[in-house]
Structure formats: structure tokens, C-alpha cells
């Protein structure tokens, strides 16, 4: 489904600040995989997702999504097959537009844009059905401007928008980290629900070890621009936070330096 081969990303190449953010990363993602990604700050997790999403070009290596080589394609072209949710709950929606206008863009994502009306009776019906799933009563507020929603509501809407067009791949970058604990739990449950319902192949970065172990079928740990562990199936089911931390220390040769991660254990 997704194949990363010798992916290398270097920031400030050929300057004193040269920074190898991805060091020959290889990864083979199967269709339907739900992979959680952990690692200390600066390990290269976000860079990995940004590279796949075409936010910036990589130095070398290839990215194959669904048999198509998407290496070097621009962000908006990659996005036609990829859904994304960012840490910032404001990043994924247009605040001055209404809920239905935002969702309409997400629903038309798979088609070419046209001069057809952005909204229709049929589209509204489909939207209400989808909004009912996230269970926040938004289906009754179609014409509310998104800027009036709370961070959690906006993140739920973003998640729905990222999955509604059935993307080949879903990229989540600490998408619950900026929410209060109760809202974060809701969004996590919603994530599992939407991903399972459509069997969407997913990469999810999280700073929460417990979530990383509990959610998904596969766990990747990154350090210094490399994948240092790739834990699957049964092995993952038998994982504990203590084991995971110990594994990290063995490879890294030092304590886990992600404060937030330890706090949220």
C-alpha cells in the first residue's frame, strides 16, 4: 500500500546547521494497517509524515503510494489521496465558512471541482448522516460558521473531513495533543471508529504511550531520524509502557527525553 525506500530528508543541507531529520527510512505499510508512531522530540516523526504528504521534497529515496510513485509531488497533489489532521485544531477547517460549506469541500475532494452548486439537498442529507456519527449535534448546525465551534468540535469536524472521501492513507500528527483530556478521549474514540469503519490505512503520531500501545495493529518507534522498532500483531498486544521505555533505552543508550510523553504515561 505505502512503501518508503531509503527516505532521506536533510534540513539546511551543506550548512553548519545541517540536520539529518530522516536517515534512510524504510517502511512497508499494508492495506488496512493502523500504525502508531512514537519517539522522542525531534526524532523525525513529523518530518516523516510531512515527507509522505509532499510538504517538502526529500533528498533521496522513494515514496510509493498505491503503486504510484508520489516522490516529489506537490502537497496538494498528494492530498488528493491522503487525508491529514494536524495538532492545531484550527488548521484543518475554514473558520469563516459554515460547517456545510467546509464539509462540501471534503466530500467533493475525490471529484474535480466544477461550477456545480457547492451544496445540494442530496449533499446535505449525506452530510447530516456523516455528522450524526461524530455525535456532537453538528448535524443540526449546518449553517453555523466553523469559527464559532470549540477546538474539540473543530478537530472532530477535521477528522470527519479527512476521512469522508475515503483516502488511501490517513496521516495524524498528535491530533489530540492540543485538546483537554476529556475531549481528547472523545476524538481518539472517533478516530478508531472512522478508521475501522472504512478500513483506512493510517499512520498516527502520538506522545501518549498508552494510546500508542492500545490503538492500531502496529507500533513504530523512531529515534534520530530512523525507525528503531517496528512492533506488530501479537508482540504489540503483549507490550507495556515499561517494556517500551526499556526497549528505547537499549537502542538509544539513554533515558527517554520526551517530557510530555512521560507525563502522559
Amino acid at each position, binding site marked *: 500500500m505505502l512503501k518508503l525506500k531509503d527516505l532521506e530528508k536533510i534540513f539546511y543541507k551543506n550548512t553548519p546547521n545541517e540536520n539529518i531529520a530522516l536517515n534512510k527510512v524504510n517502511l512497508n505499510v499494508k492495506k488496512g494497517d493502523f500504525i502508531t508512531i512514537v519517539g522522542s522530540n525531534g526524532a523525525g516523526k513529523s518530518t516523516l509524515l510531512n515527507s509522505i504528504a509532499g510538504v517538502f521534497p526529500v533528498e533521496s529515496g522513494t515514496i510509493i503510494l498505491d503503486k504510484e510513485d508520489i516522490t516529489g509531488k506537490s502537497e*496538494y497533489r498528494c492530498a488528493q489521496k491522503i487525508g491529514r489532521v494536524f495538532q492545531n485544531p484550527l488548521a484543518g477547517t475554514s473558520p469563516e465558512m459554515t460547517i456545510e460549506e467546509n464539509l462540501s*469541500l471534503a466530500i467533493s*475532494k475525490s471529484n474535480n471541482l466544477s461550477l456545480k452548486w457547492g451544496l445540494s439537498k442530496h449533499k446535505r442529507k449525506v452530510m447530516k448522516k456523516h455528522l450524526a456519527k461524530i455525535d456532537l449535534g453538528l448535524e443540526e448546525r449546518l449553517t453555523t460558521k466553523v469559527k464559532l465551534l470549540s477546538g474539540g468540535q473543530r478537530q472532530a469536524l477535521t477528522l470527519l473531513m479527512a476521512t469522508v472521501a475515503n483516502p488511501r492513507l490517513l496521516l495524524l500528527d498528535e491530533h489530540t495533543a492540543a485538546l483537554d483530556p476529556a475531549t481528547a478521549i472523545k476524538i481518539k474514540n472517533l478516530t478508531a471508529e472512522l478508521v475501522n469503519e472504512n478500513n483506512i490505512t493510517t499512520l498516527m503520531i502520538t506522545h501518549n504511550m498508552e494510546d500508542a500501545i492500545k490503538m492500531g495493529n502496529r507500533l513504530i518507534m523512531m529515534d534520530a531520524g530512523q525507525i528503531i522498532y517496528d512492533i506488530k500483531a501479537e508482540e504489540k498486544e503483549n507490550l507495556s509502557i515499561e517494556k517500551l521505555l526499556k526497549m528505547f533505552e537499549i537502542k538509544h543508550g539513554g533515558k527517554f527525553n520526551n517530557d510530555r510523553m512521560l507525563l502522559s504515561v
Partner: protein
Amino acid sequence: MNLSFAITSLEQGLAFGVMALGVFISFRILDFADLSVDGTLPLGAAVSARLLTAGINPFYSLIAALLAGGIAGAITGFLNTKLKIAPLLAGILTMTSLYSINLRIMGRPNIPLIGKSTIFSLIEKLGLPYPWNHLILLILIIIIVKFLLDAFLNTQIGFALRATGDNPQMIRSMGISTNSMKMLGLILSNALVALSGAMVAQYQGFSDVNMGVGTIVAGLASVIIGEVIIGKSSIMIATIGVVVGSILYRFSISIALNLGLAASDLKLLTALLVIIFLSTPRIKKALR
């Protein structure tokens, strides 16, 4: 202020209202401070005046102005999206180039249109008394432009355009090129501004190479006055606001002139007006 002053203000407000709708697209929808409009307003006037002197149907000259403005907008778009020149500078470069181009189109700095067939002389032939004939024509044009714009902004592409100015990251995540959307918005915006230039030239009876000075500020003033007085809860409301803002702006200019202000001081007055309106939210906040 007597009646003829009021009618003149209303007519000007309507003719320049089309320009204000163009500025609304770039400034509010796209969030792109596009200064090319100071060049595209006289561009529309130049194209139209040149065609009128050649005896072309004045309504066709409006369409030609629209197209010319669209091309100018595309150039600003190209400078910004492909050559990565900052929006302000891209607009200034187009505006400056257009000064020379407009002179070339007209062949001289000023073309009088007295005695030429214009959209107004054509409508006068229908036998309606002045000022109703002029007003009906101007209102008709602006209603058509406003409703077409409203409709467009409610299509799928229109949604994408609006989101581009509001949250470009979101629109890229939706698989849409922000560059294409900027290009489209600038083409539309400058097309409308040039159309307005053609209407204004025919209304005032001449085209002048310097008639574009301060267009962006007048456009902004109209947009902002509209927002304050009518609001912007939806596109339909916002575009009504822009037209009303344009009319009120021309009225306030007339009043200022009537109160004895020199015509040459008007640009300063307009700039001050825009500064006051733009800073009101901040001042209100600071006072709280």
C-alpha cells in the same frame, strides 16, 4: 447638498461599485492586497475608450475591458504564484507596467468621449427621462454582476476560492492548488475592476491615464464601510454591503466637497477614513 449632487453620487457609487466588488474578491475573499487595480481601472477605461472611438458597440467594449482586466490579473497572479514575488510587489509591478500599456492603448493621456456612442447614449435613445435611464442601466449592470458573483461563490470552485483566502493549509489538504485559486481570484477581481473603469469612462465622458490613482483605497473604503454598516454574515449580505459601501463612500466625498474641501485633499481624506475603519476593532479592544 442638492438633488443633482445626490444623483451624481449615486451614479458614481454604482459605477465604482463594480470596482469595489473586484477589490472585495482580492482583499476579502483571497486575502491578497492587490494593488494592480490602480492600473486595471484605467486599463478598462483605455480599452473601452479606444474601441468607442473606433465605433465599436459600447457594450462590446465593456466585454473587451473585462477580458483585458482578467489578463492583467493573470499577470499579477503569475508574478506571485510562479515567480514567488510578494503580493504587494507583484501588484505594484503590474500597476506600473500598466501605466505604460494604458498610454500605448490610448495613444495619448486622455481620450474625450463626448459625442461618441456610449452605453448611456444608447439607453437615452429608449426615451426614459434622465436620471432614471442612467440609474436603471447602472443598477441593472451592478445587479447582474452582484448575482453572478454571489452564484459563483456558492459553487464548488467558489467554495475553494473562499477557503483559499481563509485557510490555505486546509485547501491544500483538500487536494486543491492554492496557486490556481489565487490566479482565478485575481483574474476575476481585475476583470471586474476593468469593467468598472470602462463604465466610469463612459459615464464621465473621457478616459484618462491618471484616473486609477487611489483606486485600491477607494475600493477598500467601500468594502469596509459596507462591512460596518451592512455586515458580512453571508456572501449575499457582504456583496450588498460592498455596493452600499461604494455609494455611501461617493456620498461622503460629495459632502466633503460641498463643505468646501479642495478636490485635491480627497485622497488624504479617503486614506484617513480607511485608517480609522481598519483600526476601529483594535482601538475598541484596547479601550475595553
